């Protein structure tokens, strides 16, 4: 019963077991089994509401927090760490508003459990500039006016930053593809493309 003794610790096995039993619970007729299932189901519930430790790096700082396992990375960033530059727009992984870098790759933070970022490097819009100096992609968005209302901008900028990590010399086609996961309802797309192209030119110039 080692699992029960360290009941605070997150274990995928126990989580899955608990959920599975609670789903099956309704179909079990034997009172004894039903009682046992109910107990496990209750444990699973307690567990899901309990907090687990998480350690990760956010903008180069090591962060140690206790979070509910269901917390998304976006929720961790916005609600716990107060990094409100990351926006939750659709919360369904459909618009790119919440894009951050996970080990320098673009991810939708609304669609990623914070626990999946354990031990990894997260970069948010707040961490992109260093020593107060704008990152070249931020500067390009300013220079080319790649924004209007500014709400999708952090996500656009992070997606573009990931693109610059991925390709040294992306062509327009690659830019369009990599940026296609980020919606801008103001439709500032022409200037967003110009911004990325300008940053690419400057990196290679």
């Amino acid at each position, binding site marked *: 019963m080692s699992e029960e003794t360290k009941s605070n610790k997150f274990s995928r096995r126990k989580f899955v077991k608990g959920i599975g039993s609670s789903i099956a619970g309704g179909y079990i007729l034997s009172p004894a089994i039903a009682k046992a299932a109910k107990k496990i189901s209750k444990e699973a519930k307690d567990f899901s509401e309990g907090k687990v430790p998480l350690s990760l790096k956010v903008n180069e700082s090591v962060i140690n927090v206790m979070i509910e396992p269901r917390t998304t990375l976006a929720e961790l960033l916005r609600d716990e760490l107060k990094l409100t530059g990351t926006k939750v727009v659709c919360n369904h992984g459909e618009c790119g*508003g919440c894009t951050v870098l996970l080990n320098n790759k673009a991810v939708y933070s609304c669609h990623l459990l914070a626990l999946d970022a354990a031990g990894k490097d997260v970069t948010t819009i707040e961490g992109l500039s260093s020593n107060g100096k704008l990152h070249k992609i*931020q500067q390009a968005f300013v220079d080319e006016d790649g924004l209007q209302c*500014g709400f999708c901008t952090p996500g656009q900028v992070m997606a573009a930053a990931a693109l610059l990590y991925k390709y040294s010399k992306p062509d327009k086609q690659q830019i369009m593809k990599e940026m296609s996961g980020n919606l801008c309802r103001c439709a500032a797309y022409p200037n967003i493309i110009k911004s990325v192209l300008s940053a690419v030119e400057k990196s290679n110039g």
Partner: protein
Amino acid sequence: MKTYDSIQHVRGESKFVDDLFNPEGLLYGYVYYSSIAHGKIVSINLKKALKYAGVRGVFTAEDIPGENQIGGIVPDEVLLAGSKVDFIGQPIALVVADTKLAAKSASKLIDCKIEEYPAVFDPRIACEKGELIIPPRIFSLGDVNNAWSQCEYIVEGKTETGGQEHLYIETQGAVAIPVEGGGIKIYSSTQNPTAVQKVSARILNVPMHKIEVDVPRLGGGFGGKEDQATAWAALAALAASKLQRPVKIILPRQEDMRLTGKRNPYSSDFKIGLNKEGMILAYEVTFYQNAGAAADLSPAILDRTLFHCTNSYYIPNVKATAYSCRTNLLPNTAFRGFGGPQGMFVIESAINRAAEVMGISAHEIQRKNLLKEGDEFPYGQRTEHCRAIRCFEEAEQRYDFKMRKNYVEQFNQENKLVKKGITVMPVCFGISFTTTFMNQASALVHVYTDGSVRISTAAVEMGQGVNAKISVIASKVFSIDISRIKIDSTNTTRIANTSPTAASKGADLNGYAAMKACELILERLKKTACNELKFDDPKKVEIREEHIFYDGNRTPLTWNKLIQAAYLRRVSLSAHAHHATTDIYFDKEKAKGKPFAYHVYGTAIIEATVDCLRGTYKIDSVKVVHDFGSSLHSVVDRGQAEGAIVQGIGWMTIEEVMFDGKGKLMTDALSTYKVPDIQSAPKDMEVHFLEDAANPFGPFNSKAIGEPPLMYGIGAFFAIRNAMKAFRPERQFDFVAPITNERVLLTLYPAERFSGMKPDLAIDDVKTPAALVY
């Protein structure tokens, strides 16, 4: 020239309502809403929800201390449904809890029993039943009945345009904080701070001075936060007042889509009469506007449909009738264009249908009937500084329309399955709130002793660049560097009785007000300069790039020194000014007057390619000549034009709002409701600023920009349709927008073609056109 706040936007530092510092003791609200389109509320049981861990309160209509009424134009909409529900998504209760999750979970425990009544979703049926929001509105010019006999061609038809989800990237939201003396401070994502203030005061039964509304900025509005931001702010205020704790309501995306109204869908009938030469002699049109369950802004939207029912054309005999029909759908609302696009779609459809019947191109009819100087609109106003023909001809020449048209024809001869279509889309859009009294604004300008300037106006920044424009205006009036100017949030304690930031009028009205306030200070500064320099004529004082000149000669005074001197001389460095558009009026009874300060003109040429096997298409290019006046900020103006065009194309093509048979919104997520992304925006977009186009009625001769270019998007519909006609010249197509890929396919291959049909396309013809590979 940069857009305002762009550096903080790219750093993620800009604060939107949900990003503001969370006050101590903040609670979260979740809205419980009707899942029945029409019915009587039999009972509401809150017991279980109230017992849920973390819940601090659940509020229903009974808890409202003041009047349960949020209607703006017509008092026909409750904040919380008490006895009956009129649409799916109508708020019934607000659950307030320690966490967002607890509030949402508890809302599922509310037991509300509703006795279902029959519901109506079709505006024509609602009209038949007499379910009208306001009495029918009629605009007329000349006499259509006499004109028909002179017409060589008379063509009739029917059109449909769908709704449009605003999909502002920032969802609706507000934070309400109780303050001493029974007041509430509300941070709201609204285009209309005064509406939030007024309605919250009404709901709480307190005077308006107890309610302070502050709007930091909006992550997009597009009309969707003109009237529909109010409810969430008022609900937050209600809960904050009851619990004496700060309450935040941020609608999750799906709830935002389910609970807020959209662009009004329209169903319309037209009858158009032309002579042999293609001159339009008469036009009769009937609009059935789907208002949804409450008036919201629909009556004003209906008026704008009528104002723009003849678009950019002069038609001597017009009769336009419009019905605002009450249905059991979400109350529809303002959306960029505000009924104008819906009206223009019908006249363009009529012209296209007439062209088909006459065997000529629609372009010929458009060209022949463009507005000229002094022409009368159906509402009595005459054109002044009319640029309809100029824009049209310049677009034809600049973008070589003839050559492009020939190219398209040639392409269509050479390609069997892939067809191209080209169309011209002229636009004429009136600028002013058509409700005359709303054409007012005010501004408050402070100059601080270090020479920096802070400006408040009634305008709400939502990406349309109003702050950038106001800072340009102030920097021009003072002739100081733009970096000295800071534009403040919009706040009802600094600027009272604001008109909504809407109707493309934000920069015009507030720009003028800011200009006047700056001028008041400038006059005082000129006198101060005379006193300092011992000169006698303030009229000869001039500021040029932060240096003070007298009679054309540079003096030792600079902006900084002058401000210091003024302060020491106890001269006021603050000013408040009010601006109201002069010389506009409109008699609603007669439907005649001069409602607009001026009109914006422009013409777009749009090309599309349709894969007639798959029904897919792309918009190849949109090329525009647009009348910006003398642009105040070319970057902002170009961005507004490009963005509006894409949004207009979205409305006409891929954006489809759908409800099921019970009135439930089916397109309530981005997976089911598509908006243009970076790939679907036209690859080739060119916007040319019409030259020598000063506008005497706009600040520094500028023109409004927010809405007019959206209507170029209507051209996308006709470009696609023209391509489809090239594929099936024998068929008569309808005028139903949005023309989604599915609709293209179903139109090209209607069901009857498949019953025992012989395939008329050999398999060898099936090629993937290179042009359509993304």
